């Protein structure tokens, strides 16, 4: 489907990542926003608050992030594409209802403009320290999708992608920005609505008395058809382990089916979901794996390394979760070593090591956040990795 022109601010703009993300949400058809102010994500909420009244959207500032997350789930069940925005401390509070979103298969988008942590940490300075929390933060076994933009343009593009994926797979999708990407200002091209593909959830339209909220129809990739509240299906939704009818079922068999499908619908469709960018990988001996703002700094380090005659390329994660496992395994067979550059003390590197599984050497360039890497430090590590 094409985007609703009402929300699309077609043209060339000079925007920071936070504002670009808000425009991406508007273009994707987001018409419900609930949030709570927190640095460095507040500009997204501010932009939405100023833009929504004239596009038929509803913005509500909630009392906290627990409420914001609960409200976007409720709104999603009322049929609206819904979003919230936060940073580390708020992300922690959202984990409770992110779990409910995963369990009840509720489409929604959560943007996290990451800052340095733990706790209050560095409110105004960058980090990429919530990458594992995005994947594992709520209790129990489940899968989510997370994308990691590295420019304001991608904040726009990937927010649309996040909505499309959340509607398609009925799962909370996270846009894992960082303070640098959120606050850097660059050119953002917003195409005409007629050139923007948006995906709307597939709705059940069969006989009312036969609707089973969690029955998977063949050919819909393990994703059940949704019904919106008020459409007359009178369904039941619960955070308890449930059967096809959506009714609680307290036993190990139903638990196995319920949880397995929540995971399979993402891992089984990883090829459709996963996106990444490869730069000069042909024949490279060393591959730097990175994402978000760290990828921009890595580009400089790679130029420096190439000037020194080193054979090095870059693999940039665009989707962090599910992790592009298949492609990493292929690369690990071919290269001498892989270097992870991320603004944390080592998070996605664990996933990298798991996938590489000893086929090549893995190095980490850690950073506690608050600033970006020094390209020279990355260069040194590349040199060591090339030995």
């Amino acid at each position, binding site marked *: 489907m094409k985007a609703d022109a009402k929300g699309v601010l077609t043209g060339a703009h000079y925007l920071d990542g936070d504002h670009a993300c808000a425009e991406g949400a508007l273009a994707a058809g987001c*018409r*419900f926003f*609930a949030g709570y102010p927190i640095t460095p994500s507040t500009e997204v909420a501010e932009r939405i608050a100023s833009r929504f*009244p*004239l596009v*038929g959207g*509803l913005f*509500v500032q*909630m*009392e*906290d992030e*627990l*409420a*914001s997350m*609960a*409200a*976007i*789930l*409720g*709104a*999603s*069940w*009322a*049929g*609206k594409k*819904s979003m919230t925005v936060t940073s580390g401390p708020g992300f922690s509070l959202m984990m*409770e*209802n992110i*779990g*409910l979103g995963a369990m009840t298969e509720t489409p929604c988008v959560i943007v996290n403009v990451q800052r340095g942590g733990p706790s209050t940490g560095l409110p105004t300075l960058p980090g990429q320290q919530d990458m594992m929390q995005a994947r594992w933060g709520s209790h129990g076994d489940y899968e989510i999708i997370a994308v990691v933009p590295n420019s304001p343009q991608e904040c726009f593009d990937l927010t649309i992608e996040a909505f499309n994926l959340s509607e398609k797979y009925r799962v909370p999708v996270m846009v894992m920005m960082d303070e640098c990407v959120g606050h850097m200002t660059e050119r953002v091209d917003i195409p005409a609505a007629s050139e923007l593909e948006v995906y709307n959830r597939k709705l059940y339209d069969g006989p009312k008395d036969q609707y089973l909220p969690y029955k998977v129809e063949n050919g819909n990739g393990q994703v059940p058809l949704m019904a*919106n*509240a*008020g*459409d*007359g*299906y*009178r*369904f*039941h*939704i*619960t*955070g*308890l382990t449930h059967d096809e*009818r959506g*009714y*609680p079922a307290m036993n190990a068999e139903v638990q196995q089916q319920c949880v397995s499908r929540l995971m399979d619908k993402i891992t089984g469709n990883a090829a459709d979901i996963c996106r990444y960018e490869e730069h000069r990988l042909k024949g490279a001996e060393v591959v730097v794996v990175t994402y978000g703002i760290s990828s921009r700094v890595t580009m400089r380090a790679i130029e420096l390394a190439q000037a020194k005659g080193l054979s090095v390329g870059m693999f940039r994660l665009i989707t962090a979760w599910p992790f592009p496992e298949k492609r990493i395994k292929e690369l690990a067979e071919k290269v001498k070593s892989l270097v992870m550059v991320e603004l944390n003390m080592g998070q996605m590197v664990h996933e990298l090591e798991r996938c590489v599984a000893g086929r090549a050497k893995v190095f980490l360039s850690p950073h506690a956040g608050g600033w970006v890497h020094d390209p020279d430090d990355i260069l040194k590590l590349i040199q060591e990795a090339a030995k």
Partner: protein
Amino acid sequence: MNEAAHPMESILRMDRMPHIWCPGCGIGTVVTAFAMALQQAGIPLDKIAVVSGIGCSGRVAGYIKLDSFHTTHGRAIPFATGLKLANPELTVVVISGDGDLIAIGGNHFIHAARRNVDIKVFCINNFNYAMTGGQLGPTTPEPAITTTSPYGAFENPFNLPFLAEGSGAVYVARWTALHIRRLTKSMTEALLKKGFSFVEIIAPCPTLYSRRNRLGDGLDELRHYHDKSVIKHGADTRELDISYRDKIVMGKFVDRERPTFVEALDKRFTEVFGKKYEPYGKVAT
């Protein structure tokens, strides 16, 4: 002869019976009153949604044959806020317990009332956390025995009608599970009232609260309500504290008009944007 249909069959999920509640529990009575109120209010059933949190009372949503949501502990009100604001055409009812709505969900309760989000909150107050075995709650009176107040409660409990009125609710009433007819009437009024409407229902929990506090079985507790409750419509909500084994003042205390969240939003944006603005309350349906 055909087996007679249950009079509430159109409203209850009969395929989920029997329910989990104990014999003599007040929650079932509240569900009956709610089902009758739905019939009396005459709102199309397809346009009503019920949201519950967690706890014995949090299980209500699971037995009501409407769009029904069993959410997380304390978050029924913000979930309902999202549901209602995203589709103002829906009538959204929250039915949950005192611990869920007032302790872990207390912040959401006061803010939803302050914003006057047009939702109906029916709080089943049984003076303790029952699902987890009967612990001290935000409404447990002094010096009631619970598993976490083994020597008697000593905290000051909330007076819920006072809290609701002070936070901005437009409709506030209290009944016990014994007063089904009056409770049903209040629920019906709340369903038809525009704005944040609150009904507290004092309900027996014979298995835990009554037993530990030697109030007898469910019937004894109802007898206690019968003897101790007094109806005082329009009573000053400051005077509605419930003391241990003392009188319970019931009635309709507040029925006033305030613009709802969506009405206030539409008014503001129409003032600012004029004709460019399409009122949300109309377009969103």
